[in-house]
């Protein structure tokens, strides 16, 4: 099996002058990227990185992000790309949890100054990749690297851990999804069998690479020798459309909220995209009406609906464009190498049409959660991944998702454990109880609503609670609504009846 790092090395050798990244008007070739990969790898090796050691990354999508990810692999390390929206307390928890000795950054993240301030009493080496690449300081540290294309990769096994991707856990603590080199290679290869990605493609990337969907968009396009146009903000969707137009993007990948933003806040009908041939959607159900709207706005583009989760590297199923009309609402069939069953409460496969938990087996299934055997055992049983998603298959085998059986709130591209927000709000003095629920939202699918009970004779304003949240939570985890109540509705056994709060 060809590993991702080996593949990139080969592509950089065979297509050195092909464009790999376009960002902010700058263009980078595969040769430029490989130079950066080698620079990062060499820096890490100089600093004593051992095979299998974790390296954290804190940076937005950029050429340096890609160079860091692949550079860590070239040096034999394990990547841990952190969510850049997080605040220091969460970032620090993850850095400690994954055991990283190095933190690669873009040098500008606002929380870096706190890492620097705390750096004196911990063994975490901070490396500013942007400065590293421009200074070329590494070349003189060991021996000069005469020929980057001949750079010798650290030998890594197929089943070696490649990446840890943190996702929200139901208990409120993030779980480190641990993926092997073989998981990522196999899933990349399988996605390429479903999507017709070629060297001529130029994908518009608005999804962050630190999430598994963006990560898979990155790896599949690099594997194909294609180009990536990077736009790190989707606050102004019209700008993204204009960038697609200028850069002649062939592919657009989004989650339902991305498409809702395009429909509501951009002029898709009046922005011609003649080069667009492929659209992929994953990350939750999108309304049939919205899909139809995009089909009519971009009739020349094939529309793929996909389903997956981080624990499965990224993708599990794909609905081919020619089946979109006849199977509208389905997420398609399992992709290459993935075996899928719908299982009932007795863990046995149920017949077509019957609902149950979606379970999968295949080379894309994670090794487990990083240092969390209990959580691992709760989802990996007898070689099968229990996804927590509830669905059914029709007579033709097509998969339909009907919901999730774990209590998670999905807002935009993010999954949030309500317990995490509840615990934070309870840190505010004077609050006795708190429940956080997801309420429907046209744009994001769901937004967070916090319902708060104050202690007797306590007076805590909404402003104080929201300010505390703002200081400690990323924007996407902020409650959009906050309500004070006398008491939370509960069952006789004392369990909060959250459905009554929606």
């Amino acid at each position, binding site marked *: 099996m060809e590993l991702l790092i080996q593949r990139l090395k080969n592509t950089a050798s065979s297509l050195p002058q092909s464009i790999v990244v376009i960002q902010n008007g700058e263009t980078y070739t595969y040769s430029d990227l490989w130079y950066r990969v080698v620079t990062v790898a060499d820096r890490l090796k100089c600093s004593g990185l051992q095979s299998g050691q974790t390296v954290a990354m804190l940076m937005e999508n950029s050429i340096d992000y890609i160079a860091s990810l692949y550079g860590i692999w070239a040096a034999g390390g394990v990547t841990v790309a952190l969510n850049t929206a997080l605040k220091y307390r969460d970032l620090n928890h993850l850095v400690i949890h994954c055991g990283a000795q190095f933190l690669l950054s873009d040098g500008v993240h606002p929380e870096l100054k706190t890492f620097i301030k705390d750096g004196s009493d911990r063994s975490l080496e901070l490396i500013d990749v942007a400065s590293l690449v421009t200074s070329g300081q590494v070349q003189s540290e060991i021996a000069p690297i005469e020929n980057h294309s001949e750079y010798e990769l650290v030998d890594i096994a197929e089943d070696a851990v490649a990446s840890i991707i943190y996702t929200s856990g139901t208990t409120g603590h993030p779980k480190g999804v641990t993926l092997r080199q073989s998981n990522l290679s196999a899933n990349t290869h399988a996605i390429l069998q479903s999507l017709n990605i070629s060297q001529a493609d130029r994908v518009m990337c608005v999804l962050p690479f630190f999430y598994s969907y963006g990560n898979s968009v990155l790896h599949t396009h690099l594997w194909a020798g294609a180009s990536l146009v990077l736009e790190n903000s989707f606050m102004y969707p019209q700008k993204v459309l204009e960038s697609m137009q200028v850069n002649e993007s062939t592919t657009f990948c989004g989650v339902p909220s991305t498409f809702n933003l395009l429909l509501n806040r951009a002029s898709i009908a009046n922005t011609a995209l003649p080069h667009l041939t492929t659209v992929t959607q994953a990350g939750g159900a999108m309304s049939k009406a919205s899909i139809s709207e995009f089909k009519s706005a971009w009739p020349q583009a094939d529309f793929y609906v996909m389903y997956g989760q981080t624990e499965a590297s990224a993708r599990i199923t794909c609905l081919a464009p020619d089946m979109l009309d006849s199977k509208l609402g389905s997420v398609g069939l399992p992709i290459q190498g993935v075996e899928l069953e719908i299982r009932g409460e007795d863990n046995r496969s149920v017949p077509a049409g019957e609902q149950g938990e979606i379970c999968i087996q295949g080379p894309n299934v994670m090794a487990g959660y990083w240092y969390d055997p209990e959580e691992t055992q709760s989802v990996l049983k007898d070689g099968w991944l229990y996804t927590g998603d509830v669905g059914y298959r029709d007579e033709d085998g097509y998969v339909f998702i009907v919901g999730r059986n774990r209590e998670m709130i999905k807002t935009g591209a993010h999954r949030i454990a309500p317990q995490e927000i509840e615990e934070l709000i309870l840190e505010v003095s004077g609050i006795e109880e708190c429940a956080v629920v997801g309420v429907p939202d046209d744009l994001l699918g769901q937004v967070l609503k916090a319902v708060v009970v104050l202690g007797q004779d306590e007076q805590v304003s909404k402003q*104080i609670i929201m300010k505390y949240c703002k200081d400690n939570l990323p924007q996407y985890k902020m409650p959009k609504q906050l309500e004070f109540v006398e008491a939370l509705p509960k069952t006789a056994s004392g369990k909060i009846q959250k459905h009554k709060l929606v």
Partner: protein
Amino acid sequence: MSVEQTLRDYILENYLFTDDQSELNSADSFMGKGILDSTGIMEIIFFIEEQFNIKVEDEEMVPENLDSVNNLVAFIAKKSG
């Protein structure tokens, strides 16, 4: 109250959760400083449409018009003029 002050008060109250005027510079980029997210900018659009009786077209939803208090003030003046 001036357009600028109306906007400042709205943003301080609803997104920065403070009365402290020094927390917001009118030139601050909402995107760059992480003051607003995608839904926040949508809410600002609804707010200025209602407050200043203007209509923001799809093509006008760009940072040059919306991404700071100063940009909003200039945009509202242009639309109202």
